[in-house]
């Protein structure tokens, strides 16, 4: 399967012949670091290979369109409930630099005693089944070819079917996963004996499959009352999972700690979070670090969340992070929207590029509060471990509520999570192995009478599925209604008919988001904002973010609602904007030619801002490319413009027309064209009009060569001039 950058991914093609699809590689992939990487005008220190296709940061056009890629793996977490919609989101995220795609599982899969098959729709995530994994892996294989970088696919091995899910992951080319029995015990109330016995088998399978494992310790941050107080316990949780994984046969370089800076402003974030980050990296030297961004203190304001996430990423750069995970800035208010996955990825990559080479500039202080606090956190963690052993071991400590207590250990508030070792999901299902217990397969942990002294255990059965994938039994669908083919019927039919709907999450959802400021006290303003949204024909409008600007002067709201209409592509006005030329290309053409341009706001019109945006170097106008601009000012008659054009030998005349009463703007354009013809100047001059009511169509109808409306950039105007004059030179 091959993707073309100008075509949407073909979902029918993804689903075709899945029963025969095999992953082409297995195991985790790290980015290839390139140091002293020369790109555009800069030499980067902490980058990796560039992509073959990507969307650069927006400011990149000022630096020759460079798109440096940081040296850390970037994660985005994706969970719409429909994997077929997620594939498009993954592709967009990959173009923005994500190479670790984490698929969140549907609510409740942890308690599903066995594997899910087919493609049922999920809630808050995707039901992880073999078919969904295989289709996703197939799509990601095509996406990684398109962007030119391997993409790691990740999901979860938790709940009461961990070993089975681990087998499917190893068989189907999943590259990373979460596996931590503590998560099952504390947050999913899975019986603790069951959780640990299952975990050893799952970890052994993951290890042999080269799958990178993340732990679940970050959940203690997300659920703690005061997240910074839980840091000593976090060291303990990480350590238990690390030591248990190694005992189950997992090498250190496949074990990653999932760590998150616990606080957010207005807390003094770095003062609290940095000593903890340092303590963690010192105690766990040799393991990998997956740095997560903070979710505990996220509210509905996406800007506030983004700034916290920038600071999180700064902490990653000041310490270390092999993987920088990203949180969508809207996670505090809804299930993430796909463009917010892209926003989250960009927060991390923009921050990393800005911090490139930081190690050469800054060292962390090796005396004072940083060292003292780091030491204290470690000592508190040692005391925590001593108490576990004093209580009679891990199970007894959990039963006594030692974990996720809101006190700053050794302080205890008595509100920790309590689990009974004899209860929970799967209680009583752990069985002692008999002396003749056997398992004739690879990647099996523990006592096994069928494990030979030499060769593989699966030799007894002529090979297991991990050695002979053709033995894998693929199940397509179990439910003819709740499946991907049925869900795709309407959206694909609409797409084939050329119909488009807005969307944020699922194809055809119709959801749009408005920003409305209302100049009144909050309660009144909110009611008014919703009423305005209803008048805009939005169904079910809901306020998803509110921010008081002043108690009496007003509040700003973000409102989501459904725009229940489809646009027919065939009926759209044909005004496709041309892609502007790269800055460097424009300048290289313009500078040596000494091109003069005259410009003015014409008629009885004192507006000058629009033209300044197009001309002035400080507004990014066309002067910066080397055009000689003669701005005659405002309320200029068209005759004077042509006089000036004659005097300077100008090649282009730019007129701005803001005032449109009585359609005077049309009159000015027509008069400029007519007068230029009269004077015999028309062939030499490019006549260009701009203004909020100007369109290319209107301007051309009035005799102009081009017209530019609201939001036009200097670069677009310069591109038009260069393209036109270049064409004339050729002729």
């Amino acid at each position, binding site marked *: 399967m091959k993707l073309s950058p100008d075509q949407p991914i073909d979902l029918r093609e993804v689903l075709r012949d899945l029963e025969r699809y095999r992953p082409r590689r297995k195991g985790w992939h790290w980015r290839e670091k390139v140091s002293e990487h020369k790109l555009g005008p800069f030499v980067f220190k902490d980058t990796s290979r560039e992509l073959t296709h990507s969307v650069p940061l927006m400011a990149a056009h000022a630096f020759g369109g460079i798109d440096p890629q940081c040296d850390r793996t970037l994660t985005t977490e994706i969970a719409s409930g429909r994997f077929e919609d997620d594939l498009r989101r993954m592709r967009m995220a990959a173009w923005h630099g994500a190479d670790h795609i984490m698929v969140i599982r549907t609510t409740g899969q942890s308690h599903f*005693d*066995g594997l899910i*098959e087919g493609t049922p729709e999920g809630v808050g995530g995707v039901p992880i089944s073999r078919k969904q994994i295989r289709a996703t892996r197939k799509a990601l294989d095509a996406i990684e070819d398109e962007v030119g970088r391997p993409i790691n696919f990740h999901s979860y091995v938790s709940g009461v*079917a*961990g*070993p*089975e899910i681990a*087998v499917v992951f190893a068989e189907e080319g999943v590259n990373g996963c979460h596996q931590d029995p503590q998560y099952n015990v504390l947050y999913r109330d899975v019986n603790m004996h*069951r959780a640990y*016995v*299952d975990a*050893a*088998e799952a970890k052994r399978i993951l290890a042999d499959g080269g799958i990178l494992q993340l732990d679940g310790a970050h959940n203690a941050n997300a659920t703690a009352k005061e997240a910074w107080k839980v840091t000593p316990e976090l060291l*303990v949780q990480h*350590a*238990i999972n*690390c030591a*248990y994984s190694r*005992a*189950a046969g997992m090498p250190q370089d496949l074990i990653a700690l999932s760590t998150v800076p616990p606080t957010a402003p207005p807390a003094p974030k770095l003062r609290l979070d940095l000593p903890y980050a340092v303590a963690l990296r010192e*105690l766990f030297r040799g393991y990998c670090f997956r740095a997560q961004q903070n979710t505990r203190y996220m509210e509905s304001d996406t800007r506030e969340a983004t700034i916290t996430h920038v600071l999180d990423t700064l902490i990653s750069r000041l310490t270390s992070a092999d993987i920088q995970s990203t949180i969508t800035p809207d996670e505090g208010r809804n299930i993430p929207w796909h463009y917010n996955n892209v926003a989250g990825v960009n927060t991390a990559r923009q921050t990393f590029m800005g911090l490139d080479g930081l190690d050469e500039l800054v060292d962390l202080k090796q005396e004072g509060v940083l060292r003292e606090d780091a*030491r204290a956190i*470690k*000592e*508190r963690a040692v*005391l925590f*471990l001593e108490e*576990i*052993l004093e209580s009679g071991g*891990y199970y007894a400590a959990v039963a*006594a*509520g030692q974990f996720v207590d809101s*006190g*700053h250990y*050794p*302080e*205890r*508030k*008595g509100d920790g999570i309590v689990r*009974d070792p004899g209860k929970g999901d799967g209680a009583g*299902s*752990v*069985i002692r*192995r*008999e002396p003749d*217990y056997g*398992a*004739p397969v690879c990647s099996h*942990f*523990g*006592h096994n009478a*069928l494990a030979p002294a030499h060769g593989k255990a699966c030799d007894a*059965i*002529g090979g*297991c*599925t991990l050695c002979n994938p053709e*033995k*894998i*039994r693929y*199940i397509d669908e179990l439910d003819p209604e709740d499946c991907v083919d049925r869900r795709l019927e309407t959206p694909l039919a609409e797409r084939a008919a050329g119909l488009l709907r807005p969307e944020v999450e699922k194809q055809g959802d119709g959801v749009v988001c408005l920003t409305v400021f209302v100049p009144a006290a909050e309660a009144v303003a909110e009611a008014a904002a919703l009423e305005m949204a209803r008048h805009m024909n939005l169904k079910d409008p809901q306020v998803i973010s509110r921010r008081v600007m002043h108690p009496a002067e007003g509040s700003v709201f973000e409102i989501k609602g459904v725009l229940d209409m489809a646009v027919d592509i065939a009926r759209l006005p044909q005004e496709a904007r041309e892609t502007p030329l790269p800055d460097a290309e424009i300048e290289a053409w313009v500078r040596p030619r000494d091109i003069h341009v005259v410009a003015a706001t014409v008629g009885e019109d004192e507006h000058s801002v629009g033209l300044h945006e197009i001309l002035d170097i400080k507004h990014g106008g066309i002067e910066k490319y080397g055009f000689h601009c003669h701005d005659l000012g405002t309320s200029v008659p068209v005759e004077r413009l042509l006089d000036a054009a004659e005097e300077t030998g100008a090649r282009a005349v730019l007129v701005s027309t803001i005032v449109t009463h009585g359609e005077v703007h049309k009159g000015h354009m027509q008069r400029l064209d007519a007068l230029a013809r009269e004077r015999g100047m028309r062939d030499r001059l490019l006549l260009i009009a701009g203004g909020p009511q100007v369109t290319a169509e209107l301007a051309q109808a009035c005799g102009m060569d081009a017209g530019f409306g609201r939001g036009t950039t200097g670069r677009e105007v310069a591109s038009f001039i260069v393209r036109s004059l270049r064409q004339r030179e050729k002729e």
Partner: protein
Amino acid sequence: MSRLERPDDFEQRRAPLRALSDEALHARFWELVEGVVAPLIEEARTHTTPSIERSVLLRMGFSSIEAKALVEQMHERALLGHGAGALVLKLSRHRGIPVREAGLALLAGEGWEVLAP
């Protein structure tokens, strides 16, 4: 189970740790962790679960639906302690048939008498 409440007495409790170098503190940390984990991993080495047994059958080439049914029936017959894979292999060897056929026979209710310990 009673839940403990305790003030932050860190300054008293840390006294014995004060003298340790960072290295020694790290070593102490990991030694304690090993002590916590050792009984857990020993339990895993000597025990199994329905999910582990289903995962073994998956690796032997059974579908998830077949694996679930086989493990349930073995569990009901109190045979799971021998290992689901070993049981299927036992029937396969006894009858001289491929492993997959043996599993399907068990699902059809045949051959269970061979598996009695």
